[in-house]
């Protein structure tokens, strides 16, 4: 008799645990620091709260759009000024990467409800202005001045006037300077308190670093060949 009561209560206990914790449901665990115990979270508690984008992240993206736009202008000049096939191929690579990244940054800003340009007086289409100097002068860059590495109006003018091998040389040195500026901007971003905590932006900034570094490498190789 006693035995059967035990059996019944054991069965009840089993039923209880089965209903209390659905064996189908996965556990959500948040470990603690090494040596600490882990916490179990409810599905609602596991959800990542939305985060307002950090100010330096926004201005990094806006600044980089402006920065990249100049590279596109420079390659536009390259199309008619240079007969160097390798340089044309490089120009294609730069245009693809800079234009893609501009679109990416605009999308990032739009997804976060932010304007693509830094200043309200910006139309956001200044990069379409092929008369580089006019475009630069007309730009309101506030207190920012040129983004690091961007060619000065004088440099852009010199580039626009050159052609042939002289253009090629100015293009290479100018673009290396330009790309070097992007590396500085990325470094500045990560040197800024509270910046770069958005995962998408972290990846993107790291990719900019990689892409520009790779292109600098190609351009340095071409400069070396030029010297031969």
């Amino acid at each position: 008799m006693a035995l059967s009561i035990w059996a019944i209560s054991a069965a009840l206990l089993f039923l209880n645990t089965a209903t209390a914790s659905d064996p189908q449901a996965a556990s959500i665990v948040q470990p603690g620091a090494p040596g600490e115990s882990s916490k179990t979270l409810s599905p609602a508690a596991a959800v990542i709260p939305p985060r307002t984008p950090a100010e330096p992240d926004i201005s990094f993206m806006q600044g980089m759009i402006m920065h990249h736009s100049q590279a596109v202008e420079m390659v536009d000049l390259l199309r008619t000024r240079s007969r160097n096939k390798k340089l044309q191929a490089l120009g294609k690579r730069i245009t693809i990467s800079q234009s893609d990244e501009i679109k990416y940054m605009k999308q990032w800003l739009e997804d976060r409800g932010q304007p693509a340009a830094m200043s309200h007086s910006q139309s956001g289409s200044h990069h379409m202005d092929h008369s580089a100097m006019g475009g630069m002068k007309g730009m309101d860059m506030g207190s920012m001045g040129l983004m690091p590495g961007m060619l000065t109006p004088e440099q852009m003018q010199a580039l626009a006037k050159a052609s042939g091998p002289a253009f090629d040389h100015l293009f290479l040195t100018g673009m290396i300077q330009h790309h070097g500026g992007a590396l500085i901007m990325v470094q500045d971003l990560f040197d800024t308190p509270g910046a770069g905590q958005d995962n998408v932006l972290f990846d993107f900034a790291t990719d900019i670093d990689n892409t520009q570094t790779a292109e600098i490498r190609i351009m340095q190789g071409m400069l070396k060949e030029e010297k031969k």
Partner: protein
Amino acid sequence: MIAEKTSRLLRGAVSIAIALSAFFPVLSNGQNTPLVLSNPRAPATDPRVGLKPGLYDAGEAAFGMERLGSLPKPPGFAPGNVVGAPPPPPPPAPGESQPPGPPSNQYGSTNSDLAFSGNHLFVGNYNGINFYDIDNPMKIKLRTSLICPGGQGDVSVYGHLLFMSAEAVNGRIDCGTQGIPLPPGYVPPPPPPAPAPTKDGAQPARVRRPPPPPSPDRFRGVRIFDISDLSNPKQVAAVQSCRGSHTHTLVIDPKDKENVYIYISGTGAVRQAEELADCSGGEPETNPNTALFRIDIIKVPLAHPELAKIVSSPRIFTDAQTGAINGLWKGGNHGEGTQTTSVTNMCHDITVYSAMGLAAGACSGNGILLDISNPVNPVRIDAVSDPNYAFWHSANFNNAGTKVLFTDEWGGGGQPRCRATDPMNWGADAIFTLSNRKLTLSSYYKMPAAQTEFENCVAHNGSLVPIPGRDIEVQAWYQGGISVVDFTDAAHPMEIAYFDRGPVDGTKRAMGGQWSTYWYNGYIYGSEIARGVDVFKLVPNKFITQNEIDAANQVHFDELNVQNQPKITWPANFMVARAYIDQLTRSNAVAPKQIAALNASIARVEASPSDRKEVAQLKALGVSLDKDAAKAKTPADAERMRALAAIISRNPPEFFP
């Protein structure tokens, strides 16, 4: 002064010559050097072109692959800010500007790499790791969600230890999701004034911004979890590193049973010494102790994983002649307006092949080959570069160790680089032959179907599919889907199967697609960045037979970390024999009459394995096949004939699976 300049120039010229000869074994821009082929782009009629967009209801195209099931990402990883939240509000009317608000979490946090152990699949994510039970691959189940942000969540598993990479600046030692807030009352120092541009346009001297305050809570490096209880993983160690861990590679030393090793590939910004002792960045000329130009190696004592620590940081880019630690692709200064850049200062990912004592490193500007006989002191034995390559991303050996397939992640994975206008040799695989410990470029391979401008697409992670007699990789191409490539002939890689979905979003760019697709014990698992986990199997088509699939499915791994590449061996049985026979039929290496004789003889031995006469006849066929191998048209066919001959010349009990 002049003399000094000349000698510097001379030195420069010499080092350039060395660099060019050592690292440009093959130039492949097609202008002044032998042409290296890429596979052609697929025609616009390819079923992958024009697929319907959608997150969970996109159009699909498959060839030689079948999708068996999928699971969306769970709470904490899934799209949407709140569990069970209503869909986001409709976009604003035209002309109306979008109100500023919190970032959308439309596609959740990014799924990343995969690791396997027994009947468990571990899916890395920027926000943690999900554990799945895969006893029944047709119906996989979520077992545990481990929440621990830090990106990118590269995973490896060894026994009861689970390893995870963290590189982002919001990662915390305690796995907290709040990021690293600034200390209360913190006032950032003003940024240095922008220097005025110099007259000649040269870069003005730059004053670096004062760094942000250090945080004792921040974690960037490799975390180690104890998963003895799969439902309650615990963090046992968190090994910090100067650049964090973008990826890592589990290394097992066959001679060392007490420890395992982890190679850290860190690509992020270098931390300041105030946050992590002995960390400093900069170029080696000004800082010989820079955390650039090295990898870090963790030793993990298996009995005491909590004591895991970095035991060496080898300078694997050192120039053997000059001793300069930035010996690969040292840019140098090229006159006014340029700056010194040393570009290969990190590895992005390393694949070790312990069976051969080798590792292949995909190290930003170079592909490198390492001798890892001493795992804490890897030694570089070759390095290659390529003008078509933007970013060396990952590597796989073929099983024989005679080829290496590198990938170029041009654009970093977030960009659409498979459009009809993107060159087929950019953002592609580069297939190298490996002979006498030297790498030689043979061809490029790129997933051939043109994708839209809304689909991020470039070469990404894959693993070998163990079909005997062929080198086959199943590879992820982000939103370009999955492409299965046969690179048995290193100079002519070809696609033999694929799977693709339409864009995640058909109106704008959205990050998604396959991050990693790996073969594990008969199935192919894919970590879809936005959509979750997919399970596939291969199905026969004109390039793959059921016999080949069956032969592959005899291979069994107890554990799989693809970057710790296992050596595959096949049983010497009829299933494998039939795979070889199919291959020899396909390539016309053996006459149809002889194929028929082989098939008939195998069938007779199968029917009566104890019939000595039949067994002897089959053996005789094997002997003649072995002889014919010397006359085979290709090395691959010769190998297949010898391998087939070896199987059928054996004794009956081994014939059967």
